[in-house]
């Protein structure tokens, strides 16, 4: 969890209308980068929505995670355009580079790999998004260099050579 913020603090400013369950969970997810169990219990109490329903919503929608995520979220687009231009191979390569059996978080918690369906940059397929920056026209050969920019011991990302 990020320092200095508690679930109570986040919930202080939110509404107690049960219709706002999803935006509230989105806010918690944004603050803590996942949905901690105590937060779900607190939300359930505050909105007077049964915990099972809060859990149902939290597990139904793709943007919520019940597990903590890594420092960098790597999203490999597997939309149709990216698929036909070779995205599955890029994903495989990425997983091999990070020693992951499938999408998930690395042991050192530096990276969380996810596949997403279409980030809407089909013209630049295949696309990988790391945090907020988009890497267009990805190839297997570019994977290593891309990761290096984000690794703690690697050099910091530079604006000029994105992608």
């Amino acid at each position: 969890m990020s320092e200095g913020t508690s679930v109570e603090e986040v919930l202080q400013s939110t509404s107690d209308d049960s219709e706002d369950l999803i935006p509230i969970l989105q806010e918690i997810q944004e603050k803590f980068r996942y949905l901690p169990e105590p937060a779900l219990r607190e939300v359930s109490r505050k909105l007077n929505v049964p915990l099972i329903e809060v859990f149902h919503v939290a597990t139904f929608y793709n943007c919520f995670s019940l597990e903590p995520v890594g420092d960098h979220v790597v999203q490999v687009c597997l939309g149709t355009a990216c698929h036909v231009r070779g995205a599955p191979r890029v994903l495989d390569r990425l997983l091999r580079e990070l020693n992951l059996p499938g999408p998930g978080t690395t042991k050192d918690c530096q990276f969380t790999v996810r596949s997403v369906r279409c980030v809407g940059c089909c013209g630049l397929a295949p696309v990988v998004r790391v945090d907020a920056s988009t890497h267009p026209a990805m190839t297997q050969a570019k994977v290593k260099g891309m990761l290096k920019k984000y690794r703690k011991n690697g050099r910091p990302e530079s604006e000029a050579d994105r992608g």
Partner: protein
Amino acid sequence: MPKLHSVRELEEVRTECLKQSKTSKPCLTVCAGSGCQAAGALDVLKGLRVALERAGMQDAVDVKSTGCHGFCEKGPLMIVWPEGTFYNRVTQRDAKDIVASATNGRKPVERLLYKDPTTGERVVREDEVPFYARQQRVLFGNNGRIDPKNIEDYFRVGGYQTLATVLLLKTPEDVIQEIKRSGLRGRGGAGFPTGVKWEVCRANPAQPKYIICNADEGDPGAFMDRSLLEGNPHSVLEGMIIGAFAMGANEGYIYVRAEYPLAVEHLRVAIRQAEEYGLLGQDILGSGTNFKIKLVQGAGAFVCGEETALIASIEGRVGEPHPRPPYPAQKGLRGKPTVINNVKTWASVPQIINRGADWYAAIGTARSKGTMVFSLVGKINNTGLVEVPMGITLREMIYEIGGGIPKGKKLKAVQIGGPSGGCLPASLIDLPIDYEALTQAGSMMGSGGMVVMDEDTCMVDLARYFMEFLEEESCGKCFPCREGTQRLREILARICAGKGKEEDLPVLEEMSWMIKETSLCGLGQTAPNPVLTTLRYFRDEYETHIRERRCPAKVCRELIAYEIEPTLCDGCHACVQVCTTDAILGEKKKVHTIDSGKCIKCGACLEVCQPKAVLVT
């Protein structure tokens, strides 16, 4: 900005804005849509500002970031006004030359002009580029002209003029009749007549009424709604306000994907500006109409594009659909009459009212009117967003606008309508694209995603891909969709792995029809389309996988092997460096070989081999 209390005050503001624009100075507009941003548009903007400052011209020339122009393939794109000089593939390094050209002799920077691949000639203006020449940009035309975060810019291109006319001169019934006469059909995919839906909602005595803009663009390969929201959000708001007036709704929602942060940001700004001007809120322009809009962010569920699931999601529940009837126009959000329209449908409304139902109805085919926006992606030279009249043929789309297939490959299929659309074969290239023709061919209009595939795409693998997507996105409420998509995917995966059986094909067919007929919502009812169309048009490919254990497109991993052709290998060692499993043997400058026992068939060697010595067999 002043709050406007009457239509007359709006007219004054608009006239003032128009006056300013006539005396305005040269302007450099840079496309800052998601695509061009990924290609470095923000750096270009920065570069232009720095270059102007260095030349001491920052007050003489404006720099503006605009929405998506559609030609994503060639991004970052920019236009120099007033000449309309169109530059493509611009980088930060070009900024100095662009500024010099715009401020001095005004001779365009030759190297940044679009080069026509067939004639080799450079063209200066956007509308001379073949990609744009065949288009009719009713909805997207203003994207390249306005700063989406600036409502005054929208005023300058005639924005909110239609709203003024409606509030001053028209009754709600007039508006609904006009929309009905125009023949506008829902642009979200199903194609239901918009005016009819509005009429049902208007006639419903229940109060309050809600309208919703469906911007949960979930189809992979489609990004037109995103581009419109990013590039011209006020056009959608204006359509919604007119709709609210026509139907008597006081509250509206825009349900937008959280995966589109830029669209969310631009919508927030647009709503705030419209509120500040009094175009949203209480007693809009003194007309007595009250209307507010709330932005709701989706949480990542494809099924929420279905209207009843979307309503459930706004109500804070899981996005599970419920059977219709009752339709939302009868009983929708919180049990009240609700009209849900797609982004493009709402944005069409001001155009139709402004230019008249007859003008709109004259575009398109007998039953599909107006323009349709497609995202032309996949194995195509000119990737991007294309707005064309309904009824255009696939041939015109792919060869005239799209510029054909890259690397001289052959067109194999076009996948239209998102994951639950269908794959049409190259033999249907002269099919006119409208709602009926596509449905008849086994596909559907959907949201307008158009993925072009060449001979290197395996149709069985593609069907498996779509089924995997739909299995993941099925909400799980009804049995046929939940279990059916899973079974279909399992069978398809088995065929791709070379373990298919003869009897698999009739089972696939039978199960597909069962899922279509018995599923609860549109997702399940259309989910088997990719399987059915690939079986209908590419059955031989399935049979080759099953009978010969061979993948003709050389895609399915279990059915291919990598080899190095000794006569072509120059021993450059590039493949050895990218191979992660040490499967490539051989010294530098000597012919290499692949150890098939170690090879995991990732294809990295193929990607880097310059002399094309790596073969797939």
